[in-house]
């Protein structure tokens, strides 16, 4: 039983890591595609990838909040869940601003801001998971 738990833990961590942090949201362009890109196209692609990554992370966080609220019994108090979601919504608005930067062609700024938000989201994600761990 102990061995089984270790195997289960390994598989769970592997699955979690694979989809959490290691799998990129977009496939990397081929060498031919990269060679055909103009500098502006590359800058847009990088900005858009950073934005998409952050939006995906935030969506996953929101889904986790919902799942933990709907758990029986709930894994958050109502106030805790609302605090997490309020923080999530705040970053969501910032990502909408990043999208506006891409629309006007400010790809460098967009990429930088999206990457910074992604780092903060990683911390929020850990907070949500850690809170669940403490109460379990």
């Amino acid at each position, binding site marked *: 039983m102990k061995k089984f738990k270790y195997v289960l833990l390994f598989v769970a961590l592997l699955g979690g890591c694979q989809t959490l942090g290691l799998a990129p949201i977009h496939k990397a362009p081929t060498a031919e595609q990269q060679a055909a890109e103009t500098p502006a196209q590359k800058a847009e692609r990088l900005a858009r990838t950073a934005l998409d990554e952050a939006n*995906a992370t935030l969506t996953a966080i929101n889904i986790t909040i919902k799942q933990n609220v709907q758990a029986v019994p709930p894994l958050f108090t109502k106030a805790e869940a609302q605090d997490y*979601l309020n923080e999530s919504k705040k970053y969501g608005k910032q990502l909408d601003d990043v999208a506006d930067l891409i629309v006007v062609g400010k790809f460098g700024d967009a990429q930088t801001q999206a990457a910074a938000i992604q780092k903060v989201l990683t911390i929020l994600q850990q907070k949500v998971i850690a809170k669940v*761990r403490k109460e379990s």
Partner: protein
Amino acid sequence: MSAELLNLAFNLLAVGVNRGLILSTVDDMEKAGKSPQEITEALKALRKNSEIEAQAAIDAMPS
């Protein structure tokens, strides 16, 4: 085996599975020939929808 460690693994997996579903959606869109702009818009819509659903779940909790 620490129960806390096992719990953490499952929580990580749950978050990972959620992100995995999103990655799968993006993959489907790319295979369907959607433009990068369309995919970005779709991810934004997905995020906004997840906010609405999470808020509805919280609103349904007893005070």
